[in-house]
């Protein structure tokens, strides 16, 4: 079936089997392999992307359900010249990543979190990151990164 997406500002017209998951469309059809698959129960959040302004788990919806949507993946977050988004920069500065596998989903969730809850407390940040599993960092530096990234996003807004 025909599915029309705008991904990272570029229009994509895809001809997909109807059971194609959004994450498969991104990874296998658009070769955007930054979005990862870490589980099969929509628990780990490694596949998180921003769809029409909200973070979604792209393993948990069909590509067809995203027809017409505007999607940002981790590949679309930095500026065109390669300058990191403030949240990406904060993750680097705070050592908020180790193996990097959960990172794309974690960063997309963090960006979404800061857009919708701009002055989140540490407790709120921890609760709002509940949909993303990281096995490496113990979350401490991720939380610091979200705090620093939120401040940078607010300052830049």
């Amino acid at each position: 079936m025909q599915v029309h997406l705008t991904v990272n500002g570029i229009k994509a017209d895809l001809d997909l089997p109807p059971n194609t998951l959004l994450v498969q469309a991104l990874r296998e059809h658009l070769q955007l392999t930054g979005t990862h698959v870490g589980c099969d129960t929509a628990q780990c959040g490694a596949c998180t992307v921003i769809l029409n302004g909200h973070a979604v788990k792209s393993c948990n919806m069909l590509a067809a359900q995203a027809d017409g949507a505007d999607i940002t993946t981790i590949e679309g977050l930095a500026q065109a010249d390669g300058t990191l988004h403030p949240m990406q920069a904060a993750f680097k500065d705070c050592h908020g990543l180790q193996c990097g596998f959960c990172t794309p989903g974690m960063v997309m969730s963090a960006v979404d979190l800061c857009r919708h809850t701009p002055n989140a407390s540490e407790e709120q940040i921890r609760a709002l990151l509940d949909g993303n599993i990281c096995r490496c960092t113990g979350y401490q530096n991720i939380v610091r990164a979200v705090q620093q990234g939120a401040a940078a996003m607010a300052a830049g807004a």
Partner: protein
Amino acid sequence: MGASDFAGLPHIGEAVRRKEDYRFLTGAGQYTDDINLAHQRHAVFVRSPHAHAAIKSIDTSRAAAMPGVARVFTGQDVEGKMGGLPCGWLITSTDGTPMKEPPHPILAQGKVRYVGDHVAMVVADTLEQAKNAAEAVEVEYDVLPAVVDVRDAAKGSALHEVAPDNHCYKWALGDKAQTDAAFANAAHVTRLDLVNNRLIPNALEPRAAIGAYSRATDEYTLYVANQNPHVERLLMTAFVLGLPEHKVRVIAPDVGGGFGSKIYLYAEDVCLTWAARQLNCAIKWTAERSESFLSDAHGRDHVSHAEMAMDKDGKFLAMRVHTDANLGAYLSTFSTAIPTILYGTLLAGQYATPQVYVEVDAWFTNTAPVDAYRGAGRPEATYLLERLVSRCGWDMGLSQAEIRRRNFITQFPYQTPVALQYDIGDYHACIDQAEQLSEAAGFAARRQASEAKGLLRGIGYSSYIEACGLAPSNIAGALGARAGLFECGEVRVHPTGSVTVFTGSHSHGQGHETTFAQVVAARLGIEVDAVEVVHGDTGRVPFGMGTYGSRSLSVGGAAIMKALDKIEAKAKKIAAHLMEASDADIDFVKGEFIVRGTDKKVPFGQVALTAYVPHNYPLETLEPGLNETAFYDPTNFTYPAGTYICEVEIDPATGVTRVDRFTAVDDFGTIINPMIVEGQVHGGIAQGIGQALMENCVYDRDSGQLLSGSFMDYTMPRADDFPQFRLGHVCTPCTHNPLGSKGCGEAGAIGSPPAVINAVLDALRPLGVQDFDMPATPHRVWEALQSARKAAQA
């Protein structure tokens, strides 16, 4: 260069931001599943739905005829064409007989022994076709009784012909007669039974592999999410497939976490590599998470009894331990060494206990193979010992701090009664700093404040030691290791003075690309950005034993240091020639070669250029070029140690246990990048608290079905499960490697579980709960409180 000179160099101890982060943060990392090769097919494994069954028949005809299917491979296809998976460590039983070593077939041969065991591999053009065909493979089973609990193993139905009682080995360490004698004369004996719960590693990237073959060159390439590609290649070529090593290239690209579970040679890797030639194409397989739960090697799973003999003042006289260790259905690569060499030898801990005797019985059960998981034997030793020590304190009316201080080792080097010799440490400094950082003195007031809210509060201590930097090869060999345990490093100085380092260590989150670059930059007086670190590819790196046992810096880094020594020695000769001086008169300081006592000097970059443009060069005595390789085999283990203090708050109405504060003071020796080290500790603590409070691998005791087989059923720690950790460091540099470093990757996971459970017990003891096994889930805590209440009323 000596360790103390090294620690003073620029970039050492600097929180350099990671060089590898940009690619990970922009989605440009390249994990195995991100790689797609031309004309690639997809594999799906048919796995056993039964814990124990005889295979009566396999009918692949319907599957083979389905659209897109290239071939269905079963046990019959591989039988006689390859060996089974090898076990890398031979353990000898107390009666002198070797361990029972049953075959570990690549695809099941007539029998399956755990849920998830490999029965067939289906290869098709697309993943969906392979999945559909896998469902059409018809396997007829004759189900046999299953045994899953290690305590049931001896009376369970036999898994393997070579082990009719499911017993793999009985291993012992220490002087039994002396230990028994010390017990006979003890003023007090403290006893403890405990279970170290089975865990599933759950690196966030599931295992994945692509086997490829080129008829043109007769060469194989295996891309695989793995921690030690050279070991993978060696085991696969020499022991299983009988292929010449130089025709097989193993590439472990970006790897999304390992924690031990990606050390091993797995059947899938072999199958894909072998079948790539049979079908003359690349074949890709990526585990689904449910598959990872079933088939990744699990961790821990010990049942133990421990006893400590003390004098009237609480001084330890002797310790006696018996452990039953569950090895699972087959012997995974390093499985046999975990409950023995990496466990029994650590049971002295930080204490000057004169006698320690440990006996371990290892058993086969109808569960996934058990092998090293973050800490590998040392967490099991630490959990047992630190639980026992806190109980000793409670029995003797001493605080958890006092019982430890009274028994700490203070003189180094120290020979333990269980084979290891600690080179250095300062255990009092660690516990002192931990008590300060955790504000232990204010605990009583905090407990009162909790009680005022109707909550219970407890404090728990744990003073761990571990052995890292595996290992002196000769000692490991004498103990049964079937491999060397050195590391290799190559330093390639380019003509313009920048450097590429090739290391046999593998980074899957540890940040080697930055830490190792700091080491090289410090030594050569160049910028960190002028150093590139290459790892994870047998086609580029000379050799390597890989990353496990917190060995990368202390062994892999030491190999790079040795290669740098050679670089420096040769560069001095070139510099001496350029300045018409004797090389004995050349000093190398901050990137410049100086003729001692003069103002004559040449920078490193000029020497590098001269090495490759040797117009003015001593060609008759010195080869051009500046490229050196070194192998480093350590002379001893390294011994990171520390004290962790945990405070928990428990709601007695619900059993919910919350870690309120957690303090970790570690002695890792010289620290290159404190930011990366602290990140390693954070992650380790989170896994340790995970084991103590929520993670638990559960098999149904009768059917052997995995009940905790998804992230919906196996509780992974999330961000809101933790407070901010308080970290501190003590530094006694390792005395026997050129960096003075000890290793930091596993400490957090080793030190934290007993600290948490001691805190839980400290909170529950006043209500009559004397004992508690991990994990302290709300249900179990609540149950323990109800049982204690009923017992008090009875």
